[in-house]
């Protein structure tokens, strides 16, 4: 299972492709068969081998803040009981 994943927002993504140029695992692709409401081909995670590490480098370069990055992490310590 992948350590991380990204979700690209359709309204915001302009298909500029910069995320693709920086992804170290090369798991992002422009969807040439799809159009966003603004008429762009959006970027999407294509990660059949589960290689995304959630490094978030894509989100650093995204000019539109269109990428949300998730990563599987250790569970946070339990909160102390109330009262």
């Amino acid at each position, binding site marked *: 299972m992948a350590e991380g994943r990204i979700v690209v927002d359709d309204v915001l993504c302009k298909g500029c492709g*910069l995320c693709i140029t920086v992804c170290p695992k090369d798991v992002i692709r422009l969807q040439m068969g799809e159009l966003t409401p603004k008429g762009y081909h959006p970027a999407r995670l294509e990660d059949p081998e589960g290689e995304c590490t959630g490094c*978030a480098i894509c989100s650093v370069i*995204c000019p*539109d*803040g269109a990428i949300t990055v998730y990563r599987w992490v250790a*569970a*946070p310590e339990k909160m102390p009981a109330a009262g």
Partner: protein
Amino acid sequence: MRAEGAQVESAIYTRPESLRPVHTHYCPGCTHGIAHRLIAEVIDEMGIRESTVGIAPVGCSVFAYNYFNFDFAEAAHGRAPAMATGLKRVSPDKIVFTYQGDGDLAAIGMAEIMHVAGRGENITTVFINNAIYGMTSGQMAPTTLPGQRTTSTPLGRDVEMHGFPLRMCEILSQMDGAAYIVRRSLHDVANIRKAKKALRQAFEVQRQGLGFSMVELLSSCPTNWGIQPEKALDWIEEHMIPAFPLGDYKVHPAIAGKKPEGT
């Protein structure tokens, strides 16, 4: 691959709250978007969204006030530093910044930026230098490089006819009132991270009342340079950085060598 003991999926990067969740009119791959995002992230991290006022320029970022999620004013071309001065002087507890392009700051606004630095006004300027006039479709800017083709230098900028590019960090760092004058670049992830740190420092300088702060960000204009977004980022590295060297041109001793709280 997922680490052992990883049990919870956490959102480790989400869009900053200081940016409105709206589509922007900037061209695909334009570094304005990166600059906006970094400013918004810094403002979120400093917790100052509710006391920040931005001043938008004339240029591609004229509608910046539609994209940021805090108080904003629209300035006349080049006048943002003067507006910021008026606003900050009567509201000294607010964080006031201008966001300006190369025409706005270094052409029509040259007097205003020089004097805001000279007065040591406690405001921050984010200077987007992409060596061209974007909004009006690609004319020469004060920072256009010799030989660079633009619609008003169709044969390439000839220094005999059009003079030389202006290096604003070098100029403004001479002012006693300037507290933090640095140049960074947005052409790759490592430099974008450095740019964010510089923006954070600049706002800290304002918060501490140390004087005028400016972060010049070497930026791209794929549309008017006529090249693809990723090639445009390479162009920054190959051509702009030699002409506009990255670095710290002035750093107030009070923050030299110190990292802002929480970074």
